[in-house]
């Protein structure tokens, strides 16, 4: 016997197919009363006697997103968060420019740093006391 053709039905498949064929022939036929009920509902929806489908319910995350102002709002919030994290790691050194400017304009002024670290805060406190 040669190798089985994968496209050829096996004997088992053919036997099952005889059952499937009988099953297809014995499919449930709709009664006139059933079709009339379905059509009556179709006409009722069309005439507005039955309301159309409500919008799908929002999940919890969709609600949160909506509260943030949609994808635009959430995107802005995400950007601000990332910027904050970045400043936390890398922004301390860069804040010296503004500090230097303020210090140069008035030597007696209290040191102001937008993002103070511990040392500059302590220095500012000493200057205030002095």
């Amino acid at each position, binding site marked *: 016997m040669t190798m089985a053709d994968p496209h050829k039905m096996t004997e088992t*498949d053919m036997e099952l197919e*005889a059952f*499937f064929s009988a*099953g297809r*022939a014995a*499919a*449930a036929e709709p009664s006139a009363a059933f079709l009339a009920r*379905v059509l009556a509902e*179709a006409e009722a929806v069309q005439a507005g006697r039955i309301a159309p489908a409500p919008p799908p319910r929002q999940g919890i995350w969709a609600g949160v997103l909506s509260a943030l102002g949609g994808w635009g709002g959430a995107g802005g919030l995400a950007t601000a968060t990332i910027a904050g994290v970045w400043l936390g790691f890398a922004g301390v050194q860069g804040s010296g420019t503004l500090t230097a400017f303020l210090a140069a304009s008035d030597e007696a002024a209290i040191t102001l740093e937008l993002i103070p670290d511990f040392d500059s805060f302590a220095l500012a406190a000493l200057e205030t006391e002095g």
Partner: protein
Amino acid sequence: MALDLRSDVPDEALLVLYANGDPEAARALTLRLAPMALRLAARMLGERTEAEDVAQEAMLRLWRVAPDWRQGEAKVSTWLYRVTSNLCTDRLRRRGRSVALDAVAEPEDGRPGAVAGLIEADRATALEAALAALPDRQRQAVVLRHLEGLTNPEIAEIMEIGVEAVESLTARGKRALTAALGGRREELGYDNG
């Protein structure tokens, strides 16, 4: 009821016409799709009255969703198969499997017609009983593939699973059917030749 006078118009276009108030579209869609929903529900549930309830509910959902139907997203028939399938699954879960099995009449053994063989109705009844014994998902896949004649990708979309999972379900379902029906070959018109 009149014949489908819009047989050349696709379901999706008919649904738009329906949503726009065309009464003929309602009739055409009813004649085209309600029998399909009923057929699937009857095969899934094995009980006529319950199948009619499910098919009517699925059709009602179609009517209600019509104004919001988005063209090109899915075939109406695929959508209806999915909704009908899900409604059937809900019913089966609620009532438990035992009722489904009991609801299917067993062919009577030993009657002359069975001995003479080749009785289509008996084969159909035997198939129905064997299908009812399958796990829900296997039965659904086998019914959609071999009785409704859908393709595996279509079934995958209806059942919301991958094509490979569909193939696996139908293969397992067919093996179980073969085992269940194998013992009945002689009485259903097969000899061993």
